[in-house]
């Protein structure tokens, strides 16, 4: 009964979404208060219905109800509890349901907290959101229904893909989906604004926090996924330019561009049309990512759905939403009023620069991901576009972007002074140069790119610190007051500095783990030792073990550093009982932020085995940097104040210097203007 109720609730949500798609939009266009009034409560009720159906499915998994086909295909009665829960979204049907659950959740958030939005904008936004909800619910009901029954019920299920039987799976998709789907709100706002033909001031206010929220989750989701692939797939790499990874990177890149342009729009009322376009593109890329992963177009660990019917269905949905919104943009955008002018050398200018490079980077990833697919579809030629392509296109685009970050965040709105900014960044520049030179000196000219990379990373980090520092104005107000000034800086200022610092941290991790890693691949006999970096790894032997639902061969290794035992490592190869599928569990030993990484290869008859061992200096910084970025985003979301970007008073030397307490001095620091 519970499974059937879940099914009914899902259908009810679909029917309500259809109503929501039509009536409030009609109300918004015709200015009818009653039609608009249903939008908010319906959005909340839809969330309750989809939530109910998700809970019902979860219940079926928990009690191993094998009369539900989805449970049979993806669960197993002996599975540990946590994987019974995560198994709900560890399969095609469940994950699309989770996707829709998050979609209606965001709609409900707008419904619940949107009381300060103008009614037509709110109604139209929720209606657009309901279009997307209807589309995807129809997709679920027509091709991927998780509530399909299997009667008579078998007594045991088929288990869960063992690669996915991991704590990473429990967290990774929900984070990623919150990120993907979070962009649906800015998309709906943008389409609603296009339909209504004007951009309200409230639009500008709302886009930034929503974008940030989605962006924070997407950042965490991507870095989680990357770390997961790193320790679960046993290849020692952390980014493979795999189409599925690219599918999540594209919305992240354009979402990053979006949140920067939204900043300009919010503060300076400029770049409005561009922001609308970015909002549409970003969510389109999110949907494209869903399509790539869900349609089975790609063959990859993530693509657990391989069914052409579904693929065609999502493709049609995608064409409808992306094509429709872009045509709408082409048709209505000229109606929107442009506002706000600025000089090329200004905070806005720097942000436009940022946008140009980020969109170009998005385009390069887009081409690299879709070109092979298109080629395959048209004449069946199979080519693979791998790391070399992306290193040549994506890499060079990132360098100028990183170079400009410290300038951009120190620049004043409307018209900036490059020289003054450069003066403030002297210390950061010097530090970066010195470190790059030290690296060059100690590693030799072969590693010139690595040395430059380290310099770049330090430059970004030091630039962020220097920005905060200069806001303290220690020279004029003294250390105590200076610290108080820094602590009292608005959340957005802290958010900017912290997030940019995180970018630097990640870059440092990437450069170091790529350029300075040691890799050893060999066959080892028990008792044999090998040097990996500064460590000595001894293979002690192999022993079998039994886990809750798998059997494994554990390799035992002793790690010594300069003759002293530093620890033991136990990488293993597992075979899951239900599916008889082998997986690798890499052994990882962390010291500081560097890691020693061991993965088992083939086990030979005579007890020797193939291993791959890596020493990856500073590798953890890659993911820590992402976490720092996300924290920066979080800080910026907390800053709830209304923001207006005012230019620095031009050519006017400030007169009051020491006078009134609290109101302090200097023009250069006011770059973010009133209540930055």
């Amino acid at each position, binding site marked *: *009964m519970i499974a*059937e*109720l879940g099914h*009914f*609730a899902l*259908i*009810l949500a*679909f*029917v*309500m979404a259809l*109503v929501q798609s039509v*009536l409030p939009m*009609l109300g918004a266009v*015709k*200015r*009818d208060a*009653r*039609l608009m*009034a*249903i939008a908010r*409560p*319906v959005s909340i*009720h839809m969330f309750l219905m989809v939530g109910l159906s998700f809970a019902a499915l979860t219940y079926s998994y928990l*009690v*191993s*109800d*094998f*009369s539900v086909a989805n449970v049979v295909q993806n669960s197993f*009665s*002996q599975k540990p509890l946590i994987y019974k829960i995560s198994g709900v979204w560890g399969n095609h049907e469940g994950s699309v349901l989770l996707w829709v659950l998050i979609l209606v959740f965001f709609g409900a958030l707008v419904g619940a907290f949107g009381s300060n939005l*103008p*009614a*037509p904008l709110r109604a139209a936004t929720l209606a657009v959101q309901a279009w997307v909800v209807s589309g995807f619910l129809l997709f679920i*009901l027509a091709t991927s*229904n998780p509530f399909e029954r299997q*009667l008579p*019920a*078998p*007594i*045991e299920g088929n288990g869960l893909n063992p690669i996915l039987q991991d704590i990473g799976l429990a967290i990774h998709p929900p984070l990623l989906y919150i990120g993907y789907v979070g962009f649906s709100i800015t998309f709906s706002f943008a389409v609603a604004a296009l339909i209504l033909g*004007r951009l*309200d*001031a*409230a639009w500008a*206010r709302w886009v930034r926090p929503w974008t940030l929220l989605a962006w924070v989750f997407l950042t965490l989701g991507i870095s989680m996924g990357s770390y997961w692939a790193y320790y679960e797939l046993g290849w020692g790499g952390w980014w493979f330019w795999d189409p599925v990874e690219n599918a999540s990177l594209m919305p992240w890149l354009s979402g990053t561009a979006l949140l920067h342009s939204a900043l300009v729009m919010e503060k300076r009322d400029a770049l409005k049309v561009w922001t609308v376009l970015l909002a549409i593109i970003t969510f389109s890329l999110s949907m494209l990512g869903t399509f790539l992963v869900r349609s089975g177009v790609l063959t990859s660990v993530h693509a657990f759905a391989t069914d052409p019917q579904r693929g065609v269905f999502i493709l049609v949905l995608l064409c409808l939403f992306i094509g429709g919104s872009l045509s709408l943009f082409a048709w209505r955008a000229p109606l929107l009023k442009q*506002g706000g002018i600025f000089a090329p050398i200004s905070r806005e200018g720097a942000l436009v620069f940022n946008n140009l490079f980020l969109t170009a980077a998005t385009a390069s990833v887009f081409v690299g991901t879709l070109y092979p697919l298109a080629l395959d579809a048209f004449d069946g030629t199979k080519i693979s576009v791998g790391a070399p392509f992306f290193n040549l296109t994506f890499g060079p685009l990132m360098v100028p972007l990183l170079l400009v970050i410290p300038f951009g965040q120190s620049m004043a709105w409307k018209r900036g002074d490059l020289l003054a900014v450069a003066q403030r960044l002297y210390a950061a520049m010097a530090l970066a140069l010195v470190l790059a030179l030290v690296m060059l000196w100690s590693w030799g000219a072969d590693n010139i790119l690595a040395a430059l990379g380290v310099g770049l990373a330090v430059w970004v980090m030091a630039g962020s610190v220097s920005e905060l520092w200069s806001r303290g104005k220690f020279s004029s107000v003294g250390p105590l007051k200076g610290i108080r000034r820094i602590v009292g800086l608005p959340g957005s200022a802290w958010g900017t500095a912290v997030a940019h610092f995180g970018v630097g941290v990640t870059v440092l991790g990437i450069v170091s783990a790529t350029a300075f890693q040691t890799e050893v691949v060999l066959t080892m006999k028990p008792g044999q030792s090998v040097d990996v970096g500064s460590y000595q790894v001894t293979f002690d032997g192999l022993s079998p073990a039994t886990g809750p639902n798998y059997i494994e061969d554990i390799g035992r290794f002793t790690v010594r550093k300069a003759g002293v035992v530093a620890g033991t490592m136990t990488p293993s190869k597992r075979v899951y009982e239900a599916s008889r599928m082998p997986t690798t569990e890499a052994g990882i030993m962390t010291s500081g932020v560097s890691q020693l990484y061991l993965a088992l290869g083939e086990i030979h008859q005579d007890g020797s085995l193939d291993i791959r061992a890596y020493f990856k200096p500073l590798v953890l910084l890659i993911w820590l940097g992402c976490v720092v970025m996300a924290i920066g985003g979080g800080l910026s979301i907390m800053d709830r104040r*209304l923001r*207006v*970007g*005012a230019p620095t*008073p031009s050519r006017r030397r*400030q007169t009051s210097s020491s006078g009134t307490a*609290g*109101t*302090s*001095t200097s*023009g250069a620091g006011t770059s973010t*203007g*009133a*209540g930055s």
Partner: protein
Amino acid sequence: MIFWFVASLLAVGAALVILIPAQRARRADFAAEDSLSADMAVYKDQIDELDRDLARGLIEPETAGEARIEIARRLLGVDELLKSRSSANKGMSRYATALIQGAALLFIPVASIVLYLFLGVPGAEDQPLQARLNVPSQDQSLDVLIARVEQHLADNPNDGQGWDILAPVYMRIADPARAATAYAKAASLLGSTYQREIGYGEALLAIDQGIVNDEARAAFERANRLDPEAVKPRFYLAEALTQEGRVEEARTAWRRLLEDAQEGAGWVEVARTRLAELQGGELATDAPGPTAADVSAASNMTEADRAAMIEGMVAGLSERLTTEGGGLQEWTRLIRAYVVLKRPEDAQAALEKAKNSFKDESTAIAQLEALGRELGLSVSQ
């Protein structure tokens, strides 16, 4: 019944969610909702915020002034817009009522129930696993009983008795892979016995579709040691020798087996056929080993029929090895079969293919070359 009650509650809830707010909005002040006024409100809030920031000393007076000008510029813009657009909007009150009531009272309940009847399985109960397992034994089907023992073993994996019970049951439901695991577990927990070893070997045989692989062979050898008189292990060991093409030893094994044979036992006919084939210089030629039925069928055929059957099996094996590849043992069998069938060119070709498919394994190559020499084929590169 409860299902329909709850389902209709949900549908009624959905209808009310649409009806109530629409009813309320009718009385609400409409003008206040205009979006331009909302813009004005935002800008006014911004000015208030600016004043507070200024009072708290977060920004400098000059900047505050600039910002105020900026906001005022935006405010003015809105004001102009407001004046230019004075015509009041008329609601679409007549249609709106009909639309809202139609959606809430007609569309939602009818569409959801019709769709559900079309997609769902009305009346299908939940079937939580635990509840199904707790039904008294005599009412349970075989697979439920198996699941109960399995669940017991998941909690007590060291209960050898349980594995002993399960193993033959798995064989009966044609799940040799699990049977093999169960026999192996029972043997490792309770020690090796004739029953467990022979069961294990037969399960492996079933997995490999009649081929006696090394592991199965080891199991049969253990079984043979535990009960040297027993027929089964000796039969399978003889079969293993036959499959490997060790003609002399196989012949001896079959002959010894037949010496002790009781007339009328089912396996005797198979053993005789095998021996006859070996003595006639023929080999069992197909990879997955002909089943007893095949063999007994073969013994009833005319010479021509039999030749055709053997040719067919060889062709099938060759096809499979070429397209899917295979083990060294299978290639060996194919090459030998061609020699027996007096098709040396095919034997030569098969040898080349085999060498090609094992080109990275020097031991396999060496074995293949030895085989080639033995059969008088050319082994030069």
